[in-house]
């Protein structure tokens, strides 16, 4: 693949897109872990089906309509869970299935675009266009910029929201900011692994990190490296053996998680973690 990389533009775009998305997902993964938001990620990504279907039916850019729906879902989950009248998992269950149902109903109106829909469901990293790559770059600047600017505030607010709020931090605004960042990241990941598997990239990298490191710095480092490794390995497998790219990338993440799990089991019996 590396020899072909210089020859084919689509391979270069695929590699850059995969690395950008994995970087975004891996960094956010730390906060998903700290705030136990794995189910929120799953909810937002599945709700994207409604947004994609609206785009395909109306002729709007499906990624943009998915972005609007995902941001709306994220803010809705935040507002309902803060309202205290409904548990967060219930709110996610209702919003997500509602939007997925909408997507399924809209798909039924026409059968001309079901092939397109398949690429949004399962992703096709080898078909990333220049326009999509530009969109991913903008998403990366927005999300990583937000996290860079508020990093220590986010760490505090995700670890101990009430205490952060008492000391004057806008904990609620940071929480909503994080939810919007998750929505943007999920939509970005749709291009690489599809909306069915997008949440895996938000959950598994930090889960690998916690197996190999005890401190957030180590967790973040392992998370980023494992995400990048999964993209490169998954892309290679996809290219050489003609595998579904999204599935290959996520399988690489899952494989790393189990290797890390075994490693942790061994080191727990013998010595200290790999990283501090």
């Amino acid at each position, binding site marked *: 693949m590396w020899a072909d990389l210089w020859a084919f533009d689509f391979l270069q775009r695929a590699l850059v897109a995969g690395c950008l998305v994995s970087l975004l997902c891996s960094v956010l993964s730390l906060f998903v872990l700290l705030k136990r938001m794995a189910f929120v990620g799953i909810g937002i990504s599945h709700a994207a089906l409604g947004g994609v279907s609206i785009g395909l039916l109306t002729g709007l850019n499906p990624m943009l309509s998915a972005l609007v729906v995902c941001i709306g879902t994220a803010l809705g989950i935040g507002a309902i869970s803060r309202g205290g009248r409904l548990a967060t998992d219930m709110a996610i269950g209702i919003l997500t299935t509602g939007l997925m149902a909408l997507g399924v109903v809209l798909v039924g109106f026409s059968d001309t675009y079901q092939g397109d829909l398949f690429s949004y469901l399962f992703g096709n990293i080898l078909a990333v266009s220049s326009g999509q790559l530009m969109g991913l770059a903008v998403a990366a600047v927005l999300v990583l910029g937000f996290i860079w600017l508020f990093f220590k505030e986010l760490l505090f607010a995700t*670890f101990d929201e009430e205490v952060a*709020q*008492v000391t*004057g*931090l806008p904990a609620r605004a940071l929480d909503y900011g994080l939810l919007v960042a998750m929505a943007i990241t999920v939509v970005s990941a749709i291009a690489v692994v599809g909306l069915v598997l997008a949440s895996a990239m938000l959950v598994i990298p930090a889960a690998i990190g916690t197996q190999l490191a005890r*401190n957030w710095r180590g967790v973040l480092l392992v998370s980023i490296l494992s995400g990048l490794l999964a993209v490169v390995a998954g892309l290679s497998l996809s290219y050489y053996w003609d595998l579904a790219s999204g599935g290959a990338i996520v399988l690489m993440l899952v494989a790393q998680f189990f290797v890390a799990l075994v490693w942790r089991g061994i080191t727990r019996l013998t010595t200290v973690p790999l990283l501090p």
Partner: protein
Amino acid sequence: MSNAGQQPAGLSDRAPQAPVVALDGVDLIRGGRQVLSGITFSLLPGRFLGLIGPNGAGKTSCLKVILGLLRPTRGTVEVLGSAPWELGHRAHQIGYVPQRAYTDRWAPFSVFDVVMMGRTCCIGLGRRPRRKDRERVMESLERMGLSDSAKQPIGDLSGGQIQRTMIARAMCRKTRLLVLDEPTEGVDLPHQDRLYRLLDELRAERNLTVVTVSHDVSMLAAHADELACINSTMHVHGHPREVMESHHLGRAYSCEFDFFSHGHHDPVGHDHAAHGGDHVG
């Protein structure tokens, strides 16, 4: 306003001080239930108030009203001279140690990291901690006897050590008011005693005002300047000895309090109705 705490020992010859905390006729209704009713008291700088009361009495809600996490349905709250939600940058003068019974053991933070969170409001947006911040954190850890544990994961600490870490986090800046919710829950007796002695020392060093909720009435009575017993309404508020001997304590808990009242037997009737604030002191 309660008179209790307005005339602390040794302050009578000085100019009157503005209270650090002042609640006036605070009502709180949550989910259709009256959680607090007509809570009125004030607390001068350097005083230690222990809030006691039975389970579900509204003690934690009262703390959250003081902290600005809950807004009262009626009445006024002033902390450091302003409504707590209007303190702006001065909010960093409040330290809060929440109930810690269920600290995540897997949280990927060292003790140092957790205490550094307390400096977040002092560092500035987009900036990383500087040497001054790291020094303050180490000073705070040293003060709480935790400097050797700075690099340890927070999840490896005992209950008492975690509570001292949380106090170090609350005290690593210019804190004037420290609010603690059940600080001795899940902490063994020697560590409880150590915790309260550390609070006494911090108060002496920094003229710190402390508000603590605890179920451990006897330990609180031994260290606090004032006790206030609430069960939705304020039952009694004053010097710990007077509160312990007051028949209103038994009424608030709906049980007899011979154990605490040191022989002042007060057979509590079966009238469980809340009584209006009786301010002793």
